[in-house]
């Protein structure tokens, strides 16, 4: 047991530690909560931003006249309209709008305010910019090469920041080491992907501006915006709206709010600016990728004796908070284990890429990605179970790190033990040799193997870095109705801190939780505070609120003492009443009555407690020496994975996350923080990455950058260490970030344990593992020179048309008949619309199609028909929603591959919006339904000016449809007796998206069990799907071996393209693998028919 607060003991806590209802729950479930995009002010304009299409260019000329002339446009601003003042959290290097140069794809060049969003977007497309394209530094290597292009002319070598340290004698340490491990790990960009994008509504009133922002840090934002706008701090009023997720991405480093305020000033009207999802990917500040070299030295018995790191971090084009992130990533980890000496050298490097910045973990996930894997390597080399090795070296309370981080409360070993117990580490490792199982090259038909991994982390509770005050101040006012109000500038971004702060105040005041209210941040009204960063709110803001409540409680007692004529020390506040300790119920007086009597009298005074708390920490020096935080939180995360050697797929089976955050003030929100952090760690590790070309993601949408969904989540165990932090409010520490930090390393360690493959570069992909397991299969790989992406979002952005605004408003008609729809099509200026999916995707990706008329086919009666006739022919009209197939029992019974395809579509919402026509019409083999139909020999009926024709789907894919033809219906015969079919959709990232490869097969058997017919189809790996009738199998007795051998021809038939879902070589491998799986499964189903 850890020491308890001697003053209180757990039993006396009435509100702290309880699952009280969240403050913000009801408005959030009813839709009443007001996010920034929900605000509407009278006369409000809408903004759009023109961004650089080049990673590095000089602006030769800028002509906004055509934009300004568009009716409805009220203001256009460029850099020339600004104070030409650079701003930034640590190293001011960012202009609100570009001056002379642009430095990344997405850099803000100009902005428009107009009466409605469409007009603003259309106006942005009319701004003419002439650029002189400059050579760009598009990676760490390019930026650090001799003679590299300079991102900022005043920064030689592109080094934005650099520092080094040696604490203790590291050379002597390594000399004494028996075992040394080292390696270089690369971490990755990760976008916050808050489902609410960055936004602002700004309004000027004379020389004062009010900015409704979804910022995490209202006061820090106010300070920075005042510099960028050139007005004094007190004249910038930041009001925090509801914040739809922050994770570090809304901490006031972006230009969006500043541009919004500029437009509001020049237009004289309120202006709303909301990032599109695309802008959020192009120009918010994702996690900073790092190249992290680490070397560790150990004695034979496992004691660590020395550590050295060298690190280079990709700052992107502007610095934001990256300088501080560099510091955290360099020194924080040294407060985790008992390192006697450490040496480091860290460099922050400018590149012509999207500026990076704060993201939950703040550098620690990159450090942990490297160092926690190095420890795992060491365990293997030392022959010690990694759990025992980490435990042996873990810091204890009272330890001081080489950087003077003073460890107060610390239950790191307890975290490890609990995590190990939850995942049953010892039991599962019983048959394990200590260290790592190395399988050697994987063999054909290898079964999936399982492995365990662990990673640990340490985090701050607030961090002294924004000037020498890591503080918070709060006011607690007690009202004459007996309720208290907390007045604080620390806002809620979803973590639950409004709830936690109310619990702390209620506990301290002796009031019930529901008797305490709390305000939302407004920098005009509230005392100074720093906001949601560095896991500081529970600890720093919690202490400030507690201190304010202490003062208010004292005032209450003094007032009651005067009124009741009893000494203050005899009185206590209990559940909203004040009376003598151990007094009778009748001696108690309601708090409200005491307050009323205290205020409403001659010379009356309010009950107002003001409390401040400054983190008991040190401002670190240039080389990051200094105790950053008054307390540290700790975590251990254990992961169990299963690796399929045939595909490289990693299945996450379980994760156990145990956190030492001191006293848990609110169990539900605490668990929620860890659960969410683990999920984001999984995303960072395995799911969230883009294809890049010339310094930009090729398709900056949630399609190419999926985030984990519910189906991704493993079995998750979350627990807390029994812990108490003496300097925390009721013993509490923070926990917002720590649940994420070590997740990628724990997963990588588990993968190494499972199959012997060590991944050094994030993200962990199935392909990387497959390549490492089967190097021989890639030996002949011919690497095509990377080619520019074709069309789509990339082309639009590269053309400097960021908005994709439509040039006109199309009309809309419901076609009453196929003939009418065909007539519209023949006119050449119309587009068919059905369920919605493909239509809207086109709009987002490429700008609006040039159609003047949208023709809905959904009310054409015959297109809504769905039938299975007496001969067993299934017919479905083009307007039939795919959900229909899922609800039809006969489909499930006979056309298995269609049922599989419907499952693979994902869920009811998509199935309901996807029509038969929408999925067949474009003839895309990567779609689910057409591929399944191909395997089953489906046909399609099309109508055109010349009438109707019915062709096999195979023929349709070969010969395509004419431009003026439309799909009317599909039909597919009842499969013969003893037929099985199967559809597979292989999504290498394990989340719902466009498949890496999809396959389908149908196998029919003769009465004697021999093969009558077999067909396999493969999609998403060629322009056209591949259809192979396996005639050589006819009459043969099938087996898994025979079928596997027979599909080898698929490898030669496909022509895959490399993209974010896999390289061409990997897709070829997977095409063969999943063709085999489809055939084998179809054969097995056929046997059961």
């Amino acid at each position, binding site marked *: 047991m850890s020491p308890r607060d001697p003053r209180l003991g757990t039993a006396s806590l009435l509100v702290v530690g309880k699952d009280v209802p969240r403050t913000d*729950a009801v408005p959030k479930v009813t839709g009443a909560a007001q996010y920034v995009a929900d605000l509407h002010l009278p006369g409000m304009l809408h903004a759009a931003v023109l961004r650089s299409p080049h990673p590095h260019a000089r602006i030769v000329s800028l002509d906004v006249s055509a934009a300004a002339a568009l009716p409805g446009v009220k203001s256009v601003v460029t850099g020339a309209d600004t104070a030409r003042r650079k701003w930034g959290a640590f190293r001011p290097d960012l202009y609100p709008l570009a001056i002379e140069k642009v430095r990344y794809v997405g850099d803000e060049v100009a902005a428009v305010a107009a009466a409605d969003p469409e007009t603003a977007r259309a106006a942005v497309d009319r701004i003419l910019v002439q650029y002189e394209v400059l050579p760009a530094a598009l990676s760490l290597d390019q930026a650090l090469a001799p003679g590299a292009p300079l991102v900022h002319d005043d920064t030689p070598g592109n080094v934005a920041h650099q520092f080094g340290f040696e604490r203790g004698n590291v050379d002597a340490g390594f000399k004494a080491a028996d075992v040394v491990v080292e390696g270089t790990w690369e971490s990755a960009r990760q976008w916050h992907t808050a*489902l609410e994008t960055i936004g602002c509504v700004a309004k000027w009133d004379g020389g004062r501006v009010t900015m409704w922002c979804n910022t995490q840090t209202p006061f820090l934002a106010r300070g920075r915006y005042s510099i960028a706008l050139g007005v004094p701090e007190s004249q910038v009023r930041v009001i925090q709206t509801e914040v739809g997720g922050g994770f570090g991405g809304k901490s006031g480093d972006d230009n969006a709010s500043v541009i919004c305020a500029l437009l509001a000033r020049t237009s004289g009207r309120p202006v709303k600016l909301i990032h599109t*999802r695309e802008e959020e990917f192009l120009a918010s500040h994702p996690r900073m990728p790092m190249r992290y070299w680490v070397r560790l030295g150990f004695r034979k018995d496992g004691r660590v004796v020395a550590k050295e790191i060298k690190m280079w971090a990709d700052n992107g084009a502007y610095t934001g908070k990256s300088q501080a992130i560099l510091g955290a990533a360099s020194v924080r980890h040294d407060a985790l284990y008992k390192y006697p000496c450490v040496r480091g050298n860290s460099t922050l490097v400018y590149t012509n890429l999207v500026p990076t910045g704060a993201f939950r973990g703040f550098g620690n996930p990159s450090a942990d990605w490297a160092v926690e894997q190095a420890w795992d390597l060491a365990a293997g080399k030392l022959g010690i179970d990694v759990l025992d090795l980490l435990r042996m070296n873990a810091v204890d309370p009272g330890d001081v790190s080489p950087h003077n981080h003073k460890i107060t409360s610390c239950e790191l070993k307890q975290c490890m033990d609990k995590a190990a117990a939850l995942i049953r580490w010892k039991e599962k490792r019983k048959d394990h040799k200590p260290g790592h199982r190395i399988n050697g090259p994987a063999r054909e038909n290898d079964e999936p193997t399982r492995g365990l991994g662990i990673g640990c982390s340490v985090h701050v509770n607030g961090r002294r870095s924004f000037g020498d005050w890591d503080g918070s101040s709060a006011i607690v006012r007690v009202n004459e109705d007996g309720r208290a109000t907390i007045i604080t500038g620390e806002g809620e971004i979803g973590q639950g801190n409004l709830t936690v702060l109310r619990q702390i105040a209620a506990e301290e005041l002796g009031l019930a939780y529901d008797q305490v209210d709390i305000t939302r941040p407004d920098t005009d009204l509230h005392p100074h505070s720093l906001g949601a960063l560095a896991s500081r709110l529970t600890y720093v803001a919690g202490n400030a609120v507690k201190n304010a409540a202490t003062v208010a409680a004292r005032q209450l007692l003094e007032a009651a003492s005067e009124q009741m004529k009893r000494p203050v020390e005899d009185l206590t506040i209990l559940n909203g009443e004040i009376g003598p300790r151990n007094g009778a119920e009748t001696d108690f007086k309601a708090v409200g009555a005491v307050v009323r009597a205290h205020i409403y009298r001659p010379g009356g005074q309010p009950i107002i407690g003001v409390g401040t708390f400054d983190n008991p920490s040190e401002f670190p020096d240039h080389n990051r020496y200094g105790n950053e935080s008054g307390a540290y939180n700790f975590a251990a995360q254990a992961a169990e994975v299963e690796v399929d050697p045939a595909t490289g797929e990693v299945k996450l089976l379980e994760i156990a996350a145990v956190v030492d955050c001191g006293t848990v003030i609110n169990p539900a929100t605490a668990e929620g923080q860890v659960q969410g*952090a683990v999920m984001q760690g999984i995303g960072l590790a395995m799911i969230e990455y883009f294809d890049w070309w010339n310094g930009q993601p090729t398709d900056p949408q949630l399609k190419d950058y999926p985030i984990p969904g*519910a189906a991704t989540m493993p079995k998750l165990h979350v627990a807390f260490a029994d812990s108490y932090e003496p300097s925390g409010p009721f013993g509490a520490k923070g926990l917002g970030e720590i649940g994420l930090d070590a997740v990628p390393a724990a997963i990588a360690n588990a993968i190494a344990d499972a199959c012997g493959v060590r991944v050094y570069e994030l993200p962990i992909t199935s392909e990387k593992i497959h390549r490492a397991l089967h190097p021989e299969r890639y030996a002949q790989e011919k690497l095509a020179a990377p080619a520019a992406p074709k069309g789509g979002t990339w082309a639009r952005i590269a053309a400097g048309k960021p908005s994709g605004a439509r040039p006109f408003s199309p009309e809309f008609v419901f076609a009453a008949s196929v003939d009418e729809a065909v007539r519209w099509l023949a006119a050449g200026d119309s587009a068919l619309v059905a369920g919605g999916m493909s239509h809207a995707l086109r709009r987002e990706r490429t700008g609006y199609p040039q159609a003047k008329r949208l023709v809905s086919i959904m009310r054409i009666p015959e297109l809504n028909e769905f039938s299975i006739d007496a001969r067993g022919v299934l017919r479905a009209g083009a307007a039939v929603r795919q959900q229909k197939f899922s609800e039809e029992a006969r489909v499930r019974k006979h056309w298995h591959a269609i049922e599989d395809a419907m499952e693979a579509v994902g869920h009811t*919402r998509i199935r309901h919006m996807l029509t038969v026509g929408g999925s067949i019409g474009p003839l895309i083999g990567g779609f689910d339904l057409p591929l399944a139909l191909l395997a089953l020999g489906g046909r399609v009926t099309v109508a055109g000016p010349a009438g109707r024709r019915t062709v096999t789907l195979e023929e349709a894919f070969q010969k395509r449809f004419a431009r003026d033809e439309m799909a009317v219906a599909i039909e597919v015969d009842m499969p013969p007796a003893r037929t099985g079919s199967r559809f597979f959709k292989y999504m290498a990232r394990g989340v719902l998206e466009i498949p890496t490869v999809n396959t389908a097969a149908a196998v029919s058997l003769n009465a004697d069990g021999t093969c009558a017919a077999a067909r396999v189809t493969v999609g998403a790996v060629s322009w056209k799907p591949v259809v192979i009738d396996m005639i050589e199998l006819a009459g043969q007795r099938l087996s898994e071996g025979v079928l596997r051998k027979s599909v080898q021809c698929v490898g030669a038939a496909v022509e895959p393209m490399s993209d974010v879902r896999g390289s061409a070589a990997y897709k070829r491998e997977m095409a063969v693998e999943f063709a085999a799986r489809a055939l084998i499964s179809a054969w097995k189903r056929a046997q059961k028919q």
Partner: protein
Amino acid sequence: MLVKFRINGDPAEVNLKSGDRLLVDVLREDLRLTGTKHGCGIGACGTCTVIMDGYPIASCLQLAAMCDGADIRTVEGLAGTATLHPVQQAFVNKSALQCGICIPGHVMAACALLERNPAPTDAEIRASVDSVYCRCTGYVRILEAYKEAIMLARKAARK
């Protein structure tokens, strides 16, 4: 063009300036029903989920013009004046929310499932939760909220 539909039980008429306006924009801008959120614009995130004629749809993909004659329900239409809908109450009871931006989408997806299928399997629940992204919670409590909602609905039915 004039489009008529029912919104949360009430008749609505919206004059569309353009044939390509999306339902999410009509809800948020014309009808000021801002509980429905715009998250990605490509039907991937599900925060714009509403129920149309009994099925969940992505209102960011739905042409408003095609909603003529439809029955549309949004998060604003669920709660009574004094009571929450059982699904909403379940999300509150289970603290199944953090920043809240996705919650209207999750609540509507849950309603759509449970109205058609009051006793879903775990797999069906998981698929429904998987249809709406949440960047905060890790989904654990949202899965629990579905079960709580089923329980609350059963309790209410027994009364």
